[in-house]
């Protein structure tokens, strides 16, 4: 009876959702089945986010692997302030930033490996956009990637980057305006 009443009440912000709690607890105790579930459910998006930040499949896989290790180490401290996936993507994005900074310190190139075989106008557009994104500051680039490429909402992006939803919206708008200028020139 009480459960039925409670079900209709929105959960308190800091109280983790049961599903998030289950995943976090499993990750904290290094439960291989939970890790596999997380990998199967979110691995594709994680690889895509990492690839678009780092530019190579090898680096993206390294970042995803590193992220899982960090998730394991930090899962016991998961508070539920954000959804488990938001928290996980935040770790991933920060891992990508760390790798990019490391690369920069070593003076390595950071651009994405272009397709060797360009076959259509769409491919050319995609390559042009990638190059434009390379020139953006990291936060702008990430907002653009998470929204336009990965299809996340501004609320999710805000949670990942620790900014407000409105700020995420504004950054995306300003970024697209800037990209549009270059887009026009590249035509």
């Amino acid at each position, binding site marked *: 009876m009480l459960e039925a009443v409670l079900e209709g009440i929105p959960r308190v912000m800091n109280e983790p959702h049961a599903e998030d709690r289950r995943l976090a607890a499993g990750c904290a105790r290094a439960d291989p089945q939970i890790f*596999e579930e997380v990998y199967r459910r979110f691995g594709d998006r994680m690889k*895509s986010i990492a690839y*678009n930040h780092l530019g190579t499949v090898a680096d993206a896989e390294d970042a995803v*692997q590193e992220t*899982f290790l960090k998730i394991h180490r930090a899962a016991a401290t998961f508070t539920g302030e954000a959804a488990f996936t938001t928290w996980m993507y935040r770790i991933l994005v920060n891992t990508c930033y760390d790798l990019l900074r490391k690369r920069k310190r070593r003076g390595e190139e950071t651009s994405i490996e272009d397709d060797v075989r360009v076959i259509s106008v769409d491919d050319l557009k995609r390559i042009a956009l990638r190059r434009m994104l390379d020139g953006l500051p990291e936060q702008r680039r990430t907002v653009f990637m998470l929204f336009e*490429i990965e*299809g996340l909402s501004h609320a999710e992006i805000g949670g990942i980057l620790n900014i407000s939803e409105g700020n995420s919206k504004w950054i995306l708008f300003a970024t697209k305006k800037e990209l549009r200028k270059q*887009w026009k020139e590249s035509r």
Partner: protein
Amino acid sequence: MTIRCEQLDDLLLEGDAASMDAAAKHAESCAACREILADWNDIAVAARSMRHTWESDLLWGRIRRGVVRTPLWRIAAAALLTIGIGGTTWYAVRDTTRDAAFGQTILSVAAVDEVERAEAAYVAAIGRLEEVAEPRLENAEGALMMNYREKLMVLDDAIAEVRSGIAENRKNAHLRRELLAMYSEKQRTLQAIVREGEHVSNE
């Protein structure tokens, strides 16, 4: 509702379906805004095509090995076991080849069975050592670890080649000896990686 050109930015900032519909409606009668909107949508379409993922057979294995860490006593036990079985295998191969009925390069059926049993145990022990060494190898940076990684790849290729030769001729003692030498080298390399990893983590 009539939209003016100055309001286009507000609609694009909002970006939801209703705002984009209103912008599109206005753009039908305004060439300048039509051009802006076309670029805006073009960028979004190009971005969507940048979503990139791929099948990776090895990544899950790497993650699993990295997360489910092996305790130190198991590392030591695996190393000891590998060394022990390695010695036994070497002894067995030496004896069986020495007593082979068909000369130095041909093994008897019984000897082949014995060698294959020892070999299987040796491979299993190396596999356990590999589980310990691999996360260290993948997480580590630096030229030394890169060299180890390349060396293991070369060894694995060579092992696969010799094994395919053995599959065609199980009694070829020469190939068996070559395979053993390669496994020994792989074992030494894996042990060096484990030692190096411990050295780094102690620093």
